[in-house]
């Protein structure tokens, strides 16, 4: 039965793994150059002692491929679901060949288990290999950007895409059994997979572990800044000073949190509070820094005056940083993969029960 399932998967399998090989060749050709440029910069900036500030030339290389890579890694599991999953059983039901397949000397349970198992493993292999290749290719960029845990990048790294591919495949197979037609099953698979990915990224993944909360002096990171709010919207105080144009009326002012970066971590939020945990009010800021009232006068406050004001605030307020540290990247990857794998298994179980109910 395994060889039968392999034979029937031949066309899809050849196309799927063929595209993977094409992609591998493109990455294998361009990847070493990227790594070479990165290494060359590393050794030269160490000599010049400007590694932290000098622009890294790898960021200017292969921009189209860099833009395409996350897209390809994101879309591949969906394609696996559409072209491996949806037709797997739907086509048998559509063309009536299930009557041929299920009346050979192989039980329905075994037929389904082998089909789902084999093509499911192929799906996971494609998701995993593709991500592994993309990870390898982009490793110099990740070393510069230090942001693979963030919402935008997490899903294109590590092992989570193996789970995505398994889930998309199982969703496709299940939709095929429900609709008994390939094309509507494909539509449901695409929509369902996109919805599941968005839901997990924004509503489930942040709760895998409670974030580390850390209090930092207000002066940590790049900032803080003062925002003022008038009829036109908000504007950064510094930008305002530079523009040199007084505002007709100052409504409210706010103290914005400094930008604190956590290398390869995932920052949930930065907030500014006093010792009792309260954020500074506009009223408080005007009182603490009367200079802010000058915003509507022709004689604008100077940057030094602003700095003095901020220094005063530093003794009262501090930053609270909520984040997932970099060492939680892999536990999160395992959790995300596990979540999608469990969902995929549940869908396979449902498909089995549904087929048994509908067709003996």
């Amino acid at each position: 039965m395994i060889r039968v399932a392999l034979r029937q998967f031949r066309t899809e399998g050849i196309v799927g793994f063929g595209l993977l090989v094409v992609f591998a060749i493109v990455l294998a050709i361009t990847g070493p150059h990227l790594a070479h440029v990165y290494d060359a910069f590393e050794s030269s900036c160490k000599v010049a002692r400007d590694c932290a500030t000098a622009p890294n030339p790898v960021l200017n290389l292969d921009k189209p491929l860099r833009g395409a890579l996350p897209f390809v890694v994101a879309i591949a599991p969906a394609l696996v679901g559409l072209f491996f999953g949806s037709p797997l059983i739907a086509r048998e039901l559509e063309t009536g060949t299930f009557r041929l397949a299920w009346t050979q000397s192989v039980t329905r349970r075994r037929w389904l288990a082998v089909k789902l198992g084999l093509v499911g493993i192929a799906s996971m292999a494609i998701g995993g290999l593709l991500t592994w290749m993309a990870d390898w290719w982009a490793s110099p960029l990740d070393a510069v950007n230090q942001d693979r845990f963030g919402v935008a990048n997490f899903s294109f790294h590590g092992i989570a895409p193996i789970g995505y591919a398994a889930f998309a495949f199982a969703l496709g197979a299940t939709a095929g059994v429900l609709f008994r037609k390939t094309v509507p099953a494909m539509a449901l698979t695409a929509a369902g997979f996109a919805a599941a990915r968005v839901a997990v990224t924004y509503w489930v993944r942040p709760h895998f572990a409670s974030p580390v909360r850390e209090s930092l002096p207000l002066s940590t990171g790049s900032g803080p800044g003062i925002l003022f709010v008038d009829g036109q919207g908000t504007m950064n105080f510094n930008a305002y000073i530079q523009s040199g144009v007084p505002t007709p009326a100052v409504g409210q002012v706010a103290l914005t949190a400094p930008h604190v970066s956590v290398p390869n971590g995932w920052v949930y939020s930065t907030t500014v509070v006093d010792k009792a945990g309260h954020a500074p009010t506009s009223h408080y800021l005007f009182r603490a820094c009367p200079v802010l009232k000058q915003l509507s006068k022709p004689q604008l406050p100077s940057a030094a005056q602003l700095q003095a004001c901020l220094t005063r605030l530093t003794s009262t307020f501090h930053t609270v940083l909520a984040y997932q540290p970099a060492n939680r990247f892999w536990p999160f990857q395992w959790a995300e993969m596990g979540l999608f794998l469990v969902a995929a298994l549940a869908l396979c179980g449902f498909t089995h029960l549904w087929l048994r109910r509908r067709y003996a």
Partner: protein
Amino acid sequence: MTAVLEASRLGKRYGHKWALSECTLAIPAGKVVGLVGPNGAGKTTLLELSVGLLRPDAGSIAVLGGQPGTSASQLARVGFVAQETPTYAGMSTRDHLWLGARMNPSWDEAFAEARIAQLGLDPRQKAGKLSGGQRAQLALTLAVAKRPELLLLDEPVASLDPLARREFLQGLMEVVAEHGASVILSSHLVADLERVCDYLVVLVDSRVRVAGDIDELLASHHRLTGPRHDRDGLPSDQQVISASHTDKQSSLVVRADGPILDPSWSVEQLDLEDLVLAYMAHAVEADRRPKLEVRS
């Protein structure tokens, strides 16, 4: 004598409509059974229940003493050629034989190869490119090469032209004679079955109307023609299957185990087609007067 198919009050429902109900049957081994009835009578449902593609909603069914479709060994004992003889359009004839060999431990490779060669099928041709008749022959080869004890065929010749029909049935008879499997073959045309079957099951409107050896059925059914009679005037061992009356004359089809003694009747033999039609007409009549229907 063991039954190849034994059903007891078997029923299958789709939504609120019963596709098959109160089906009680015992088909003896070694027969070529014709399952006949109009379209939508429940023939496909009965056959798919027998091979395990469907599960009964009422009653029970045993095929070769086992529950259909529940184990690999049970599946191996029953060959099935589905309606429209589905095959994988993108796979060649040779691929289909390979598939049959992988999926059936009892596969008879020599037979399958020989039969494909004898039919003149190109092993490399895709099944999607075969004619209806060739596809049906391929499906039959697949079902027979697994060496089943019971072969079920669902309207295998319905979509074939007369020549392909004849060739298919001839091929079926050859393999049955050679391998000695029991066969149940459905059709809505009696003419298809007349040539090959020795046992008949008439299924009308989800119910079994009559079942038995064709020779016995033909011997015990008669057409009586004579002056107008009332239905009640017949001896108790004679059962009226269908009746038509004009002002002066009555024409009845009756089932009678003994000879017809009433001299006012002229007695004619029925052919199989007349017999089946009589049972179909009977069913229609019975449905119009459900309160008077007598269940036997």
